[in-house]
Structure formats: C-alpha cells, structure tokens
C-alpha cells in the first residue's frame, strides 16, 4: 500500500474518533437538557451512564490507536489532551444526573432554563470545532468559535454568581443551599470542560496555521 495513503488513513481514524467523542458529549448534554426542562420527572441514570461509557470506550480506542500509530497528522499529546477533556463532559454530566436524582425533592423546584441554553450553545460549538479539525480550518475561524465559547463560559460564571447571590441571601434553608450550590457548580464545570476542549482545538490549529 502507498505509505502516504496509509498514514493519511490513520489520521482519518483519529479525526473520526474525536468527532465521535464530541458527538457523544453532545448527546449526553442533550439528554441532560431534556431532564432540566422537565425537572418534575425523575430521570433514569441509564442514558447518562451509557453515554459516559461510550465516550470512555472511544477514549480508550484513541489511547490504543496512539500506541500502534507511528505518525499522526496531529501530535500525540494534543490528541490525548483533546480526548481526555471531551471524555470529562459526559462524565460530569453523569455526576450531575446522580446528584440531581438524590436531591430531586429540592432540584425539581428550580428553573434551569438559563443553564440549558448555555449548555446547548457550548456543546454545539465544541462539536463544530472538533469537526473543523480535519478540514484544516483557517485560524481566524477557529479563534472566532473559541471566542464564542469563552463568552458562553463567562456567561455561565455570571449565572452561577447570580444563583449564589440568591442562595446566600438567607431566604433558603441550609440543605437547599448545599444541594443547589453543588448542582450549579457541576453545571458550570460541564461548560468549563467545553471551554477546555475549545482551547485545545485552538492550540492544535494554531500550531498548523
């Protein structure tokens, strides 16, 4: 087989796996958003667990492929960094779902619509950025997408602060403050992981620009 073609096909495999991982992260967030828009219904952990396990499997496949592959279009460290950070998205989503279930009595009274919108925006942007990698995009375009992601993350920071302001006001009992603070911080963490993924993609594109 023509060697360059062989090398090329291996790179394609990494792009496919990274895209699959980003898609899996997005699915887990979409499942979470379905829960958050209808908090009255106690969710099942099955879908979140399946999503996390699927992403874990993809991350393992990437790790194994990196051992077998001598040359990749992308640097090994960058592939590892991106796959690790993408895996943390469904992992944190599952953790949120677990806490949501155990604190359902309190959590179901909360309006999470602002979080839903930010989560949707963040994961869509990450998926788009990862899909762009194989197209060798212009750095300006990736920087623009990353700036959108940073903006979403900054809005998430402001959102948690306004939520904390309410929790710290003295209107709520201690158990409610503890449970909701925990949930808000986990939601913020999901968006932080999206931001991290965006930073890694930008770093990769910068290297090749």
């Amino acid at each position, binding site marked *: 087989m023509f060697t360059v073609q062989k090398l090329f096909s291996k790179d394609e495999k990494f792009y496919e796996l990274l895209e699959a991982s980003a898609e899996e992260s997005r699915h887990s967030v979409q499942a979470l958003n379905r829960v958050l828009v209808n908090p009255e219904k106690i969710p099942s952990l099955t879908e979140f667990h399946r999503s996390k396990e699927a992403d874990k499997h993809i991350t393992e496949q990437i790790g194994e492929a990196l051992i077998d592959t001598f040359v990749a279009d992308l640097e090994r460290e960058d592939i590892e960094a991106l796959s690790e950070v993408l895996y943390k998205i469904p992992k944190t989503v599952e953790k949120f779902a677990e806490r949501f279930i155990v604190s359902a009595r309190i959590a179901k009274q909360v309006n999470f619509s602002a979080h839903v919108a930010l989560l949707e925006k963040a994961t869509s942007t990450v998926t788009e950025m990862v899909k762009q990698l194989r197209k060798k995009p212009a750095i300006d375009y990736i920087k623009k997408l990353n700036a959108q992601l940073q903006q979403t993350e900054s809005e998430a920071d402001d959102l948690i*602060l306004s939520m*904390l302001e309410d929790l710290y*006001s*003295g209107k709520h*009992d201690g158990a409610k403050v503890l449970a909701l603070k925990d949930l808000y911080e986990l939601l913020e963490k999901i968006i932080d992981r999206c931001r991290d993924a965006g930073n890694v993609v930008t*770093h990769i594109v*910068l290297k090749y620009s």
Partner: protein
Amino acid sequence: MFSLQRVVGEDGKILELLQLCAEEACHSVAALRTLTSQPISGASLATFRSARKKEKELLGSVADALLHSLVLAIEREDVQALGDSLYRVPKTVDNFARRYIIAAGQLKGVDFSRQIDLMERGCNTVARMIRGLRERAPIADLKQLNANMQKIENDADDLVLEILGGLFEPSVPTLKAIIIKDLVELNEKVVDRCRDAGNVIVRVALKHT
C-alpha cells in the same frame, strides 16, 4: 557549562512574560487584602477583572512566543503548566472577590487576613523563583525557595483545617458555615496553584543543571 544560561538566552522573552504573570498574580492578592479590610459598600471588582484580563493577555503572548520559537530550552509543556498555574491565581481571587461581595451580609466579623498573608507569601515566592530562573540563580537557591513554598502550602492546609473546625461548631449558623467554607477553599486553591508553579520551576531548573 551550566545550561540555565541557554534557558535565559533563548527563552528570555517567555520567562520575562511569566514573571509579569507572577507579578500580576501578586497584585490581585494585594487587591483582595484591600477589599477584605475595607467596608464592603463601594467595593469594586474592576481591579480583579483587570488583573485577570492582563494575565490572560500575557499568557496569550506566551502562547504566541511558544508557537513562533523553533528551539526552546524549556519544554513547552513546562511553560504551559506554569502559565496555567499562574493564570488560576487572579482567576480564583476574582471568584473569591465576587462571592465575598454578594455574601457580605453573612460575613460580618469574619477575618480572612491570615489566609491572605499566606497567599501573598506564595505569590511573592513564585515571582522570586521565576526571577531566579531568569537570573541563573543556583539550583540550591531555587530548591530553598521551593521548600519555603511547600511550607507555606502546609501552613495554608493547617489553617483551612483550623477554620473548618470552627465552622462545625453548633453555634455557627449553617448558611454562614457553607459560605465561609466556600470562600476559605477558594483561597486555599490560590496557594495550591503557587505550589504547583514552584514545582514546575524547580523541575525546569533541575532539567538544566
């Protein structure tokens, strides 16, 4: 020849930028002391935002310098690890300040000065260590500074335990305990990041002796 000379020769610009980052981190902690020692009315977040923004710009310049340097004596991963740790100082301080302001009503009489003392010592030690790298200080001096840093971090851990012990007294209202625990843990993170930075600096110095 002692190879730190090479580090300084080729990577001087990166070290200079990192030193500015460390100094910016010191400024943000100094601003925190001012915030916590004055009446809360009229408190402004502008200084914290500006420190965080400046730090981000400096790290952007570090990233550009890394991308455009063909030969580096300091490994890129070390520069990135150091930059990440330094960036988290003003970021965490900004988080603290925002939460401190919204929770001011619950924080009357609470004294954070002992933690801030340790944060200041941590930041100043990191700045001295980076200056030491730039000025080709003997490895023994850098190791001594890092030992001081470990001591500061240990003291910060002990202080957190002491404060938490007080919060678990039945006389402390639950909400107040939750808020103080949150704030104290943020401050602890600042010292942890200084410790991380110190470890990276010593690693860099050791690699070049």
